């Protein structure tokens, strides 16, 4: 593992290559809100990434909106999506919630793939980046780094405000003992749904940026299950709280890049195995 981390640090020590790290940081903070602070481990958090990404792309392609308007709309849409489905999936806890979110992500991906007229065949959608019809000039690599950096900073600042707020107090006791929190007068369900929806907003915003970055979109790209796993692993490895998810994001980024530079063809398999190993070690503590 140390070798992989070292190789990762070497491979990535160049400008314009921080996008993945910063993306991981935003996603980790998103998962932190529901999995870390509220104690509801979502294994389908990528659903928000996908919904935010699609909405951003659709707003740009269909409505011709600027990316800088479309992305917040995508984040808002993902938050509303969380509000709409949160009450349903948050009725179950623990492993049942994990499965419910996994199914939610799979079902949403399937619906978007086959929705007639929403995108091209099989949900394929391309954001035009050349010619007269491009809604926003596409930023270069450093530009994307800057957008991701801003998102990561906003996410982390948001989480640090939230943990000190009344909602943060409610989430802390819900994580400890949900029944008891209710019996003491804490409005449990609204607090959980709010956390889920806020976590959706962060992942949705990240999905919007990612959509503009890759431009050629498909359900497989925007709903990649590996992203859900990355989110879980970042918080499990780095810890919850305000800074833990950032630590976890750095760790995962180094691991994945290191493995990628040593043995590119094995990257996904190795990263997934390492993540499972990290989760198992952490769980065993």
């Amino acid at each position: 593992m140390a070798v992989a981390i070292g190789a990762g640090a070497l491979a990535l020590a160049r400008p314009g290559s921080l996008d993945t790290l910063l993306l991981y940081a935003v996603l980790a903070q998103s998962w932190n809100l529901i999995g870390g602070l509220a104690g509801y481990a979502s294994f389908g958090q990528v659903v928000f990434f996908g919904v935010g990404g699609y909405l951003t792309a659709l707003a740009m392609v269909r409505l011709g909106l600027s990316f800088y308007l479309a992305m917040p709309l995508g984040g808002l849409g993902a938050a509303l999506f969380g509000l709409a489905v949160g009450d349903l999936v948050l009725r179950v806890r623990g492993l049942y919630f994990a499965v419910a979110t996994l199914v939610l992500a799979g079902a949403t991906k399937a619906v978007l793939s086959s929705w007639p007229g929403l995108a091209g065949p099989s949900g394929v959608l391309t954001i035009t980046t050349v010619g007269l019809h491009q809604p926003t000039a596409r930023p270069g690599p450093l530009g994307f780094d800057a957008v991701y950096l801003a998102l990561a900073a906003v996410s982390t600042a948001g989480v640090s405000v939230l943990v000190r707020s009344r909602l943060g107090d409610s989430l802390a006791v819900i994580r400890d003992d949900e029944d008891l929190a209710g019996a003491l007068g804490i409005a449990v369900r609204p607090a959980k749904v709010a956390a889920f929806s806020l976590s959706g907003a962060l992942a949705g915003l990240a999905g919007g940026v990612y959509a503009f970055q890759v431009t050629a979109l498909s359900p497989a790209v925007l709903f990649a299950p590996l992203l859900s796993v990355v989110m879980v692993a970042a918080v499990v490895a780095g810890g919850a709280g305000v800074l833990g998810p950032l630590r976890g994001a750095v760790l995962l980024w180094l691991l994945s890049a290191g493995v990628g530079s040593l043995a590119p063809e094995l990257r996904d398999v190795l990263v997934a195995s390492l993540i499972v190993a990290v989760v198992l070690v952490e769980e065993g503590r």
Partner: protein
Amino acid sequence: MRLVVEGLHTYYGASHVLQGASLVVEPGEAVALLGRNGAGKTTLMRSIVGLTPARSGSVLVDGRDLRRAPPYRSARLGLAFVPSGRRVFSSLSVAENLEVARRSCPRRRGPWTLKRVYEVFPKLAEVRTRRAGHLSGGEQQMLKIGRALVTNPEMVLLDEPTEGLAPAVVEELGQWLGLLTRENLGILLAEQSAAFALAHTARGYLLEKGRMRFEGTMEEIWDSAELRSALGVAEHPNRTR
């Protein structure tokens, strides 16, 4: 606050736990809820506060039906639930446990502040920065009662408070119950240990298989050999010579 429970039916999945349980607690009254393990005492309390909603019947708090209301409603109306066992927010400190409870019912004003809880339970003040999960059983019991009090309730539901406590702490618990009564708080005390309940309440209900088998004064319970054997208690301590 007057609590009137009428004909509650509660299920856990297919299991019909409460089969028409009814009871009344008058304002400021201390009432015992007796019964063996598995009779449905905890379920009845959970159904009253809305943690395990009953399928039919009514839970009237000052005439308002809370059967289908979420748990926080009853807490904010002044009905505090003190669950059994080590149910504290274990990762929070003692002070944070109290603070969270106080803030969860912001509109309830009354004599109970954190300061007063620390005066009544000086031991809690000594451990106020300690994690609640690391407290002794007696300290956790104090914390659970203190946590109920800072919401300034009008009635307290206590589920098996003597469970797992050392005899000396059980005696102290009796004194705390006396304090609640002097403060004019209604009490519903679910107890398997009938002797403790009989010593600290004037009236009681005997729950058996989800139904009220008996309702009456403590004298009546002591006078009936059948009830005493059902509860597993011997003669009245003052009458045995």
